[in-house]
C-alpha cells in the first residue's frame, strides 16, 4: 500500500530540480516545436511550456510509440527481443491523460505483460500538473470523471500561486521529490482552496453522465440504433480518432528486412479498428467491412466491451478525437443519444396504453400567416419523436380534444419537433392562444410516412415537390432532409403554390432555398399576386413544365388541398410520368391514429396506418381516394 504524502515546493524549486534531474533522466514535457505545442524531450527546462493547450497526441507515445522495434534478427536465425528501458520523466501530464495511462497500464500488464510497454513504464516517473478548469469546449473529462485520477502518477502538482502543492503517490515519486525538490510542509488550506475552485470550475461545464455506470447495458440495448448508420454515413474511415486516442492500444506487426537481405527487424506500429483493412484476413474475408460496424466497434470498445473489463469508461473525455474528426463524429453525441433512447424505451415500457399522451412544452411560436402559426415543442421526458418525414402526431389539449397534426421538421435525434397549425377547429383555435412555456399533450408519431424504402427510391432521381398552400408543411420534413444531401439526387425542384403572397409560409427558409443554386430550384406561384410579387401568378400546374423533367427519371411528391391533386396528377400524366412515380400525402379526419376509429378509411385502407403517404398507383383506383 502506497502512502500519499503531501508537500509543497516553490515553482522555482521544481524547475531547478528538473534542471538538475536532466543529468540523470531524459525529460519529456509540453514544449513548442516548429509552431506546434506537443510533448517532447527537452534539453533545457526553459523549453517547457507552462500554459496548457490540448496536444494532438497524448504522452502515451513515450511508452507505446507510433512505431517500435520488438525483435531484431539475422537471416541465419539469431533472434533478439528488443526493449528500450530508458529512465524518463514525463512532466506536466494532465489528469485526463493520467487516467488514460492507468487504463493502458492495466491493458498491457494483464495476463501476458507487454515487455516493451512495461519496461519503459517501470523506468519512468510521471509528474502531473492538475487542471484548474476544463481546457476547451471539446473536452468532456467531467462526463466520465477522469479529471481527478487517484493513481497513475508519481507526483501531482497543484498550482497554488507561486508554489505547487504536491500529492506524492509512489515511493519513486517520494524519492525523486526528496532528491530534487526543496519541499516544505503542506499548506492544507491552500490545497483545499485549489480543490474547491477546481470543483466549482468543472461544475460549470457539467457533471458526470447520470447513466455512466450503465453505459455497457445501454450500448447493448441500442446495437441497432439509427445513429450508427447516420454517423457511419459521414465517417471517412480515416483513423484520425484512433491515432490521437490516449486509450487505444491496437497495433500491427510487420517485418522489415534491410536491403542487404541479411538482417531485419520486426516492428509494431499503431493500427486502428476504424481502418478498413484492420479486420481483414489473408484470404480476403473482412470481418468488419462496413463502416457502420467499425464505428460501432470503436465506440463500444470505449463504453461497453472494454468498460466491462476495466470497470470504468475506457474513454477519458480528453476531446482529442472530437477535435480531430472532420466529419464531426463525437462519442458525446452517440452516448447521449443512446442514453436518451434507452430512457425513452423505459418510459414507453411503463406507458403502454396507446391512448395515454405524453406532455410537451411549447418552446417557440411564430405567427406565419393570418391563420397559421408555427410551433416548436419539446418532450418533457427528453425523448425524441423518432419519426419519418410525412408522419403525424395526435396533439391534444385537455378539456378541448385531440387533432391529427403533421410534423414539419426533418427527423432528428433531439427532443424537439416542429408543426405548423391552421386555426380550423376547437383544438387548433385553442392552440393558437397558447405561447412559449405552455404545455400540450402528444401521441405518436403515427402513420406511414416517406420511409427508408421511398427515400432509397428517390436517390439519383429528379425530385419534384409539388406543394399547395398548407401542403408545404408535411412535405417540409422531407424537403429539408433531401436538401441536406442534394448530391444524392439528380435535381430537386420545389414547386410551391399559394393563394396570395401573404399565404406563403417559411419565407426565410424559402429565400435560403432559392439561394442554394446547384441542382436545387424553387418555383413559386400565387393565385392572386400584388404589386410586390414578381414571380409567377397562376395555378400550380403552370409550374410543372417549368421544372423540365425527364419522365423516366423523376419522382413527384404531392401535397395540398384536395382540389389540387386532380389537376396536378392530370398534368403530370400528360407529361408521361407514371403513377408509380407519384407519391401523395392525404388529409383525412382521424381520431385514434392506429386504424381503429374508422374516420379516415378509404375503401379498404386506413389513411392513419397505411398513409397518409401513398404511392399514387396504390390508390388511384380507389373511389374514395381523391
Amino acid at each position, binding site marked *: 500500500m502506497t502512502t500519499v504524502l503531501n508537500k509543497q515546493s516553490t515553482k522555482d524549486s521544481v524547475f531547478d530540480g528538473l534542471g538538475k534531474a536532466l543529468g540523470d533522466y531524459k525529460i519529456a514535457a509540453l514544449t513548442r516545436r516548429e509552431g506546434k505545442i506537443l510533448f517532447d524531450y527537452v534539453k533545457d527546462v526553459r523549453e517547457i511550456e507552462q500554459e496548457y493547450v490540448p496536444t494532438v497526441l497524448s504522452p502515451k507515445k513515450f511508452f507505446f510509440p507510433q512505431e517500435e522495434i520488438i525483435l531484431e534478427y539475422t537471416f541465419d536465425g539469431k533472434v533478439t527481443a528488443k526493449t528500450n528501458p530508458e529512465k524518463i520523466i514525463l512532466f506536466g501530464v494532465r489528469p485526463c491523460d493520467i487516467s488514460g495511462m492507468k487504463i493502458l497500464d492495466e491493458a498491457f500488464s494483464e495476463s501476458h505483460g507487454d515487455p516493451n510497454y512495461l519496461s519503459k513504464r517501470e523506468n519512468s516517473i510521471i509528474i502531473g500538473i492538475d487542471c484548474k478548469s476544463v481546457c476547451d469546449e471539446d473536452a468532456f473529462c467531467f462526463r466520465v470523471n477522469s479529471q481527478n485520477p487517484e493513481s497513475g502518477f508519481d507526483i501531482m502538482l497543484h498550482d497554488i500561486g507561486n508554489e505547487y502543492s504536491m500529492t506524492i503517490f509512489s515511493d519513486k515519486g517520494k524519492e525523486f521529490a526528496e532528491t530534487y525538490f526543496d519541499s516544505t510542509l503542506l499548506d492544507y488550506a491552500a490545497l483545499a482552496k485549489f480543490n474547491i475552485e477546481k470543483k466549482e470550475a468543472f461544475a460549470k461545464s457539467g457533471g458526470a453522465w447520470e447513466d455512466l455506470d450503465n453505459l455497457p447495458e445501454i450500448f447493448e440495448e441500442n446495437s441497432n440504433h439509427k445513429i450508427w448508420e447516420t454517423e457511419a454515413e459521414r465517417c471517412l474511415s*480515416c483513423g484520425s480518432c484512433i*491515432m490521437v486516442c490516449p486509450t487505444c492500444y491496437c497495433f500491427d506487426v510487420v517485418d522489415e528486412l534491410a536491403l542487404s537481405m541479411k538482417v531485419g527487424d520486426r516492428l509494431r506500429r499503431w493500427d486502428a479498428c476504424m*481502418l478498413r483493412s484492420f479486420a481483414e484476413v489473408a484470404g480476403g474475408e473482412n470481418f468488419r467491412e462496413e463502416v457502420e460496424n467499425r464505428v460501432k466497434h470503436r465506440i463500444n470498445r470505449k463504453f461497453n466491451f472494454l468498460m466491462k473489463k476495466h470497470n470504468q469508461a475506457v474513454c477519458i473525455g480528453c476531446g482529442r478525437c472530437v477535435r480531430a474528426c472532420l*466529419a464531426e463524429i463525437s462519442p458525446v453525441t452517440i452516448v447521449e443519444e443512446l442514453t436518451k433512447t434507452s430512457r425513452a424505451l423505459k418510459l414507453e415500457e411503463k406507458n403502454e396504453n396507446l391512448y395515454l399522451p405524453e406532455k410537451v412544452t411549447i418552446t417557440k411560436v411564430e405567427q406565419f400567416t393570418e391563420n397559421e402559426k408555427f410551433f416548436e415543442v419539446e418532450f418533457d421526458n427528453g425523448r425524441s419523436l423518432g419519426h419519418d418525414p410525412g408522419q403525424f402526431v395526435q396533439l391534444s389539449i385537455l378539456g378541448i380534444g385531440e387533432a391529427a397534426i403533421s410534423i414539419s421538421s426533418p427527423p432528428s435525434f433531439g427532443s424537439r419537433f416542429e408543426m405548423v397549425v391552421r386555426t380550423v377547429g376547437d383544438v387548433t383555435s385553442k392552440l393558437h392562444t397558447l405561447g412559449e412555456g405552455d404545455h400540450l399533450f402528444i401521441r405518436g408519431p403515427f402513420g406511414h410516412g416517406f420511409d427508408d424504402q421511398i427515400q432509397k427510391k428517390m436517390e439519383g432521381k429528379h425530385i419534384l415537390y409539388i406543394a399547395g398552400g398548407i401542403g408545404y408543411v408535411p412535405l417540409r420534413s422531407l424537403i429539408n432532409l433531401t436538401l441536406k444531401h442534394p448530391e444524392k439526387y439528380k435535381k430537386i425542384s420545389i414547386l410551391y403554390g399559394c393563394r396570395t403572397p401573404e399565404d406563403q409560409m417559411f419565407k426565410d427558409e424559402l429565400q435560403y432555398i432559392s439561394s442554394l443554386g446547384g441542382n436545387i430550384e424553387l418555383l413559386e406561384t400565387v393565385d392572386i399576386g400584388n404589386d410586390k410579387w414578381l414571380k409567377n401568378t397562376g395555378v400550380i400546374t403552370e409550374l410543372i413544365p417549368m421544372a423540365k423533367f425527364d419522365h423516366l427519371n423523376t419522382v413527384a411528391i404531392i401535397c395540398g388541398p384536395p382540389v389540387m391533386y386532380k389537376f396536378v396528377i392530370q398534368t403530370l400524366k400528360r407529361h408521361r410520368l407514371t403513377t408509380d412515380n407519384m407519391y401523395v400525402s392525404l388529409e383525412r379526419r382521424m381520431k385514434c391514429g392506429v386504424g381503429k376509429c374508422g374516420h379516415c378509411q378509404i375503401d379498404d385502407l386506413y389513411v392513419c396506418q397505411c398513409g397518409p403517404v401513398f404511392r399514387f398507383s396504390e390508390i388511384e383506383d380507389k373511389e374514395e381516394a381523391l
Partner: protein
Amino acid sequence: MSKPKVAFFDFTSCEGCQLSILNLETELLELLDIIDIVEFREAMSEKSDTYDIAVIEGSFSRDKDLKRLKKIRETAGVVIAMGSCAHIGGINSLRNNQTREDVQRIVYPDNPTLYETNKKALPISGAITVDAFVPGCPVDVKEFVKIVKNLVLGKAPGLPTYPVCVECKMNENTCVYEYGKTCLGPIVRAGCDAVCTSNGGVCIGCRGLIPNPNINSQKDIMEKYGLDMNLIMDSMNLFMTEEPKEV
C-alpha cells in the same frame, strides 16, 4: 538466388520519378546487390531484350505506344507502374475532360495535329495488366525500394490501404483544416509519411484514392470549409481525373 533483371521504361511523363531513383545514391548501390538493372535510359546506354521486372514511368497517351507496352508486358514477369502518371494517369489526365482537338490547339496553336495524342491520357493499366504500383509524384524512393524488396522476396508489394491522415496524425501535425486550408488527406492513400502536410502543405492527391473512400463526406467537409463544388472537383481532379469518384 540469381538476381532479377530490372528494366526501366518511360512514357508520357516528366521522368522525375526515374531521377528520384538515381538520387538514391548509396541505397542504389545496395539495391544493386539484389537486382541487376539491365535497361535505364536516363542512366545508361545499354539495352536488354530480356528482363524479369519492368518499371514503367508515365501515362499511356498515344496509340503508337501500345505496341511497345505490349512488348514490355510479354517480356517481363512483373510490371510495376511507377509514379502518379503510370499509376493513376496523374497530371496528364487533367486534360481528359477537354476534347482532343482543344488540347492539340493549346499545345500547337498553329499546327494542332503535330501533337500526336489520344483522346485521353490513361494510367498504364489502361493499356496492359499491371502487377504492382508505386504511387506518388514523384515516388517516395524508400517506398520504391521497399516494394522492389517485397517483390524480390515474393511478398505482396505492401501498399497501405489507409489514408494520409493516419501518418499525418502519427507525425503529430495539427490538421491543416484548423488553419482554414482544405486537404485531400482523408481519402488519399498513405505511404508518403504525410510529407506534404508535415511540411506546411496540404495533400493534393498524387497517390490516388484509398479503396472505398467516402467521397460524399469529403465533399461535404470541403464545402463546409468554403469550397464550391467546382473547386472541390478541380482539387480532386488535379491528379485523380481517372480515379473512380462516383459513389
